[in-house]
């Protein structure tokens, strides 16, 4: 398929996702399973990465502030801004494109290879709604994961700052409270919701429309990761331009 055909097929898949809904009793189970797989299952790695990257951001900032005229609380301020505006929503989404995206593509792709999707279609089930919609709903809880990432990123920064001896806890806390703009949180969560949609649908697209065998499932997972990341980066630029400039 050419790029243009792929884009068309993607949007048709998105429309199909909302048509002919699966019975609620079945859908409920699928949504809960996907919440467990995609959201709960990601909290550990997100928490680990957020805490340590928050710490690294703080150390880098502190080490680069050499001018004695710059107040020490700037370390906390810079960490908060980096974590809330970019690190948590965007950087974590790229990591999720690898973790969750590959999982979605390979699980749907394996179902395609083993004719399980054909089996659903033969039964008269809207396979796209059955497979993709629960992932989309589950990933609507993604802002919850990002809020954990924000909290742990700032906490990691605090730990690095205090235990590394870069600045005092008081200065750091003053920093994270300085010039706080509540709209930045709205901006971050607006991005997160858009990225969640991309994380649910783009890997599903590559899994659902894949052709071939086990080797192609692996290739589809890689392609899915690349394109999900590219789309997230592009949307990040567009949304930042629209919401912050």
């Amino acid at each position, binding site marked *: 398929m050419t790029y243009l055909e792929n884009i068309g097929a993607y949007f048709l898949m998105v429309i199909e996702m909302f048509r*002919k809904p*699966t*019975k609620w*009793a*079945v859908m409920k189970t699928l949504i809960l399973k996907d919440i467990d797989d995609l959201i709960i299952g990601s909290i550990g790695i997100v928490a680990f990465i957020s805490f340590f990257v928050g710490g690294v951001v703080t150390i880098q900032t502190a080490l680069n502030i050499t001018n004695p005229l710059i107040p020490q609380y700037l370390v906390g301020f810079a960490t908060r801004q980096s974590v809330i505006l970019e690190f948590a929503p965007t950087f974590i989404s790229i990591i999720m494109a690898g973790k969750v995206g590959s999982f979605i593509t390979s699980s749907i792709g*394996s*179902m395609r290879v*083993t*004719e*399980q999707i*054909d*089996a659903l*279609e*033969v*039964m*008269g*089930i809207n396979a796209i709604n059955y497979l993709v919609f629960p992932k989309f709903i589950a990933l609507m809880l993604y802002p919850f994961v990002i809020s954990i990432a924000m909290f742990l990123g700032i906490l990691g920064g605090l730990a690095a700052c205090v235990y590394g001896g870069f600045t005092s806890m008081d200065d750091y806390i003053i920093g994270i409270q300085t010039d706080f703009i509540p709209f930045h949180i709205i901006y971050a969560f607006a991005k997160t919701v858009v990225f969640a949609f991309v994380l649910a649908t783009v890997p599903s697209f590559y899994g659902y429309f894949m052709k071939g065998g086990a080797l192609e499932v692996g290739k589809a997972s890689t392609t899915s990761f690349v394109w999900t990341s590219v789309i997230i980066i592009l949307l990040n630029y567009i949304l930042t331009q629209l919401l912050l400039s």
Partner: protein
Amino acid sequence: MIVVENLEKSFGDVKILKGISTSFEKGKTNLIIGQSGSGKTVFLKCLLGLFTPDSGIISYDGKIYSELSDNEKRDLRADMGMVFQGGALFDSMTIEENVMFPLRMFTKQNKSEMQDRVNVVLKRVNLPDAHKKMPSEASGGMQKRVAIARAIVNNPKYLFCDEPNSGLDPKTAIVVDNLIQEITQEYGMITMINSHDMNSVMEIGEKIIFLRNGIKEWEGTSDDVFKTDNEALTDFVYSSNLFKKVRAAQLKENK
């Protein structure tokens, strides 16, 4: 009754089905045979509605598939059961959940009613104690029988089987063949089987359609296969020395 008229299907410039016409009757086991690439699977997938034919008509008990609305097509598909070549069992579900799946999707039965029905069909396919196993824990023969159980659990009118014997040992293959034939008669279904297995052709083929290069080369019963003078069919059916000897003996006996 399923009636197929002048069915054609191409992929790009390659014409796979070239005007196939035939019909399938209730309570009969119909076998579609032919070499790899002859169009058997495409034909079956057109009947299932997984592929849209380029031209031609497929009607199910008088209802022309291409003229049905989306909801009518969905209802019709609920009357179809399919046994895929690899079983196509949902690997995240137990055997019991796999068999129960069509009931959960299409009926309003409560849990105990569904459980009863699953017990009946699993017993019918000789798997009364396999409920809690995962498909990966089942042998090839068991997986095929679970696939049959899942296909018949909702009392379908039409049963489609894509090479149900592939990968099975001869003894298990006979068990699966007999099971399909018995169920077809018991449930009064129209059963269509894609097969390469000549044993199946001779044992359970009440009607046999031989496809060659996308056209219907021959149609008849298993008895007719012995008497046919169609060279392409005899070449295909009696390609092994064993079957050649069987045929020679049969013809000698008939004289």
